[in-house]
């Protein structure tokens, strides 16, 4: 970092002092940016290696640049079905979990009722249980009730809703706590009933939180391996597909799909950040 300064002719004492001052002033920034670099490195590697033309079956060493993997992203048997299953499970589970979780969050923030503490604990527990225990226990339920449940799409969906709900509750709750109940009271005073008030006042206000929760839920669903692995039976989601194939080969198409998911997700998340920022600015202007 100081190599440039070292070559400039300056009195050594002043230089050392300046270097020390610079390091002191910017050490935190430098450290923070290094950590950001560390966080981004594997992502960059995933994207970079989606353009690699591996010599063998494993895409671990850089050979040469190619666009073939992106052009033929579904050339690996099973990868397209797996990604479709992942998207279907993700969408369905997210919609259901967002609805269930938002209702729980509203009950917890708005109402005082017997069993509130127990509800809080029940919502918190799945998040503080290792995934492997969640997956294993659900598998024992399904194995003991084979008359009702066969492992497959439905059991994956059930599992995903179960572990996403808690995250939705936490996300929506955080937003509900900070919001002004007077707006709803005003609506009621003006003759709106509870359902109308919810539709016209509450829902628009918590929509950004619900969207954020849904995005988080979808990301969790599409990313989940452990719980899905236990309850998938023969059905393959994208992570299950990767796990299955990684033993025998790592085709670059895996990187293509992962990069595509990343690009879509980061775009949506950026959009949400901007939307919330503008929303915050707007409400600031009103009050």
């Amino acid at each position: 970092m100081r190599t440039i300064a070292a070559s400039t002719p300056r009195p050594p004492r002043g230089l050392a002092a300046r270097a020390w001052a610079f390091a002191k002033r910017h050490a935190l920034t430098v450290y923070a940016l290094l950590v950001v670099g560390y966080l981004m490195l594997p992502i960059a590697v995933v994207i970079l290696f989606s353009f690699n033309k591996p010599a063998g079956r494993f895409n671990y060493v850089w050979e040469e640049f190619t666009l073939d993997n992106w052009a033929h992203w579904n050339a690996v048997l099973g990868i397209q079905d797996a990604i479709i299953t992942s998207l279907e499970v993700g969408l369905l589970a997210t919609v259901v979990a967002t609805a269930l979780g938002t209702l729980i969050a509203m009950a917890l923030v708005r109402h005082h009722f017997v069993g509130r503490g127990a509800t809080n604990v029940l919502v918190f527990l799945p998040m503080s249980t290792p995934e492997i225990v969640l997956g294993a226990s659900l598998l024992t339920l399904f194995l003991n009730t084979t008359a009702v449940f066969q492992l497959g799409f439905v059991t994956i969906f059930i599992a995903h809703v179960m572990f996403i709900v808690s995250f939705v509750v936490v996300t929506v709750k955080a937003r509900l706590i900070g919001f002004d109940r007077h707006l709803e009271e005003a609506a009621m005073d003006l003759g709106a009933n509870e359902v109308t008030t919810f539709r016209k006042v509450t829902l628009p206000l918590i929509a950004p939180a619900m969207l954020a929760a849904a995005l988080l839920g979808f990301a969790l669903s599409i990313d989940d391996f452990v719980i899905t692995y236990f309850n998938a039976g023969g059905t393959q989601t994208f992570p299950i597909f990767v796990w299955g194939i990684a033993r025998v080969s790592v085709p670059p198409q895996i990187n293509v799909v992962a990069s595509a998911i990343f690009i879509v997700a980061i775009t949506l998340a950026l959009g949400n950040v901007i939307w919330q920022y503008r929303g915050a600015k707007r409400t600031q202007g009103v009050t």
Partner: protein
Amino acid sequence: MGTFLHRHRGVTPYLLLAPGILWLAIFFLIPLAFLGYESLQSGLFPNFEFTWEISNFSNGIRDYHEQFVRSFVYAGIATGACLVLAYPLVYWIAFRAGPWRNLFLLFIVAPFFVTYLVRTLAWLNILADQGPVVSILRDVHVLGPDGRLLATTFAVVSGITYNFFPFMALPLYVSLEQIDPRLLEAAKDLYASPTQAFLRVTLPLSAPGIVAGTLLTFIPAAGDFINAALLGTPGQAMIGNVIQSKFLESLDYPSAAALSFVLMGLILVALLVYARVVGSERLTG
């Protein structure tokens, strides 16, 4: 419906709760009961019988205490590493990043947008024997000429550190962001040096974030088996690897269930200690 809700206000919260709570009860609580039931069975697949087989637990602990200890040690080191990496970054975001805060928060969660298995496989690229990191370390003699990073404890622990980093960073950020800057100004006015202000004001106020982040990182890390499976060897096997292979490969459900319970029990003990220290309302957010 509106008038119904209005007349029976006491029922409303339960109506709101019912679908979600039922889902959690049926697919989270009841399965735990089934897991407990399974853990006390004996026999061979597929003919298991419920026999109060307590020995599944004692045998599990006896045979796999090494993997239990390893899981908790790896998870502990990874959690410490996450704290050291995350605290300065998050501090910088909270106090120095200004309008760029949300963008940098996005950098923290960005790894989550790359499929878990794929971002772990990316560490295979980075740490590969023919890769740049190993060749540099060999050149500067940190590693011997045949030294490797893959298939070592280092690889597994760094994989865990990377994968669970956001669980540490986000609660830390929340606690740091809530600190009133006027408190730091007050400390300065009272002649505290920056170091003193940090140690006496910022650090104590961010303690809840540190504890929450520690638990949120440690719990999934202790149950993880992906990093050990992809980046390590059987010599780095964690308890998650044992549970996974017993459940899905050797189909020894009773002892796998017993091991899951021991793991959960150990983690619950940690949680209860935490609840004692900081209070349960803060714990459940």
